[in-house]
């Protein structure tokens, strides 16, 4: 029996703890599955570290795990700041980081398995759905770091491509909770939608402030002013509460996805945790990535990152995120960009038949003209193929 030590580097305390806990739970469920699978001659030994959202801790813990714990594979980091900080250490040790969260793209390390969606798998399809339906005047808001900046920059580029407009753009620190000035600005500028790229508790506070203001100003209600997100999943909805009602979000997995693999995962999670739980894309990715690693290690008889990567690129895996094979060109997975609307605390998938999208982390194949044509076509469809509108 081989024992494989893996590092789990998730912040289960701090501002984005909900995501950290959910991803960790997914990975632990995967480890439990592997360790109880008699057909696999493998035991996985998790080394759980909680950096608590502190960058210094991420660095120190990564360094210690790679130096002293005989670890080659680390699952974790939630934010891009943390990933970018630990990446040089992971590369120095020629180890592997399994990254499970959506991110802003423009990265392709040989030492990372990117299991989260990049912009052509989140914001581009989200805008393709939302812009024809609601219009192209946006209010952009985000946390003051690379995820917020870059996702909003891409949003601006997409909006410009189809003749849209950014009416305002604001950034806030991680632990910011005061958004009353934002509400005034939104009331004044009257955007068609809000793109919310805030992270963690700050994001919940913004949505709650907005929902409260909507009681006084009906024009802010979700039916009239949609709020979009590229990173809010099931694990955060309870923290947002009723304020999440009606918001749009995109992810490569939702609990509402209609598939056999998804049902199996939910049943398994319910029996492991003792009752049905909310599962996010980070949970589902965490779970299936451990199974992928275990299979690769057993088949290749090696945990060398290069061998594991090669195995992932040459085999197909049935997961709750779809049938997946690693794209060796980018080290990303092709993912299905589902769009969901939150109803009664649950994101409900709008179209179950969405096709998988190959990751294009540098947006090499993005064509602004084609995007604009798609939006215009969608708009015409919304207007019932009528170019002329009767005005009474």
């Amino acid at each position: 029996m081989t024992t494989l030590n893996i590092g789990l580097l998730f912040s289960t305390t701090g501002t984005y703890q909900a995501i950290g806990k959910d991803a960790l739970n997914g990975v632990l469920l995967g480890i439990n599955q592997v360790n109880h699978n008699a057909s696999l001659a493998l035991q996985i030994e998790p080394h759980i570290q909680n950096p608590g959202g502190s960058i210094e801790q991420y660095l120190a813990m990564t360094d210690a795990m790679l130096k002293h714990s005989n670890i080659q594979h680390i699952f974790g980091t939630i934010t891009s700041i943390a990933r970018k900080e630990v990446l040089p250490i992971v590369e120095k040790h020629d180890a592997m980081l399994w990254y499970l969260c959506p991110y802003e793209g423009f990265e392709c390390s040989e030492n990372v398995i990117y299991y989260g969606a990049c912009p052509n798998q989140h914001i581009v399809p989200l805008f393709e759905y939302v812009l024809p339906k609601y219009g192209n005047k946006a209010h952009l808001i985000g946390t003051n770091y690379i995820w917020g900046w870059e996702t909003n920059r891409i949003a601006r580029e997409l909006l410009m491509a189809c003749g849209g407009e950014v009416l305002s753009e604001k950034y806030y620190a991680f632990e910011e909770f005061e958004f009353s000035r934002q509400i005034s600005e939104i009331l004044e500028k009257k955007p068609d939608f809000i793109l919310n790229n805030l992270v963690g508790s700050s994001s919940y506070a913004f949505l709650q402030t907005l929902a409260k203001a909507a009681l006084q100003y009906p024009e802010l209600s979700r039916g009239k002013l949609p709020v979009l997100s590229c990173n809010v999943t099931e694990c955060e909805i309870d923290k947002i509460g009723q304020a999440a009602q009606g918001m749009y979000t995109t992810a490569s997995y939702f609990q509402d996805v209609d598939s056999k693999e998804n049902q199996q995962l939910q049943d398994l999670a319910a029996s492991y945790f003792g009752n049905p739980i909310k599962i996010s894309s980070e949970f589902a990715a965490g779970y299936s990535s451990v199974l992928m690693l275990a299979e690769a290690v057993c088949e290749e008889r090696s945990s060398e990152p290069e061998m594991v990567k090669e195995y992932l690129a040459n085999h197909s895996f049935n997961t709750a995120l779809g049938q997946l094979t690693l794209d060796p060109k980018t080290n990303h997975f092709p993912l299905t960009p589902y769009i969901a609307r939150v109803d009664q605390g649950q994101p409900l998938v709008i179209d179950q038949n969405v096709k998988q999208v190959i990751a294009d982390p540098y947006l090499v194949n993005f064509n602004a003209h084609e995007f604009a044509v798609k939006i215009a076509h969608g708009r015409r469809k919304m207007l019932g193929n009528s170019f002329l509108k009767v005005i009474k």
Partner: protein
Amino acid sequence: MKTNITPNFRGWNALILHRKHVGECKLAQQLSRLGIKSECRGINAVMNFPQVDVIFVDVDEGIDEMFPWLAGDATIPLIGLLGSEAPGRLAWALSQGISSHILKPISHSGVFSALTIAQHNYQYRLNNLQEIANLQQRIKLRPVVLRCILQLMDLANIDDSRAFMAMRAIAMQKRISIEELCVSYVDDSASLMQLYQSHLRGDLYSRVLK
């Protein structure tokens, strides 16, 4: 607010001038991810120089006259691959006019930013060179402007400031530089006077309108 368009290098061709090594394979792989086709050649292979959009050159082993242009006159962006930081090697890189650089050992990170910075710096340098050439040409024509103004002063019996203002206004109307205007009319008294008179009539006409 200005939109920062995502840099896109899809369809570019790159030449890597470096002895073959794992680092260059990584570079080629990263270029392919960015939609760039690349060819790796040894540092001395300057025969049949291909048409490419960007060159990555090994600064550690770079030699004079390896490019089919004079040092510093690169017709495409050059990106230096730097191992040694010896001042002599850095001086060579600067003399070639590199637009950006990547430190060795080459990894997958840094290629996109090196390309983006190189493209920007190269275009900026080209624009500056064009602007400098344009200004130098105008400076060369200063004596012609002076002679033309003196001729107009003499012909129209006006002072230097009125003569200069008239020529400048005409040049602006014609959307050309004052130097270009003066080149066309200097030493041609009849045409110069005719030009000045029509300018005055235009002035009178606009005054009537007011």
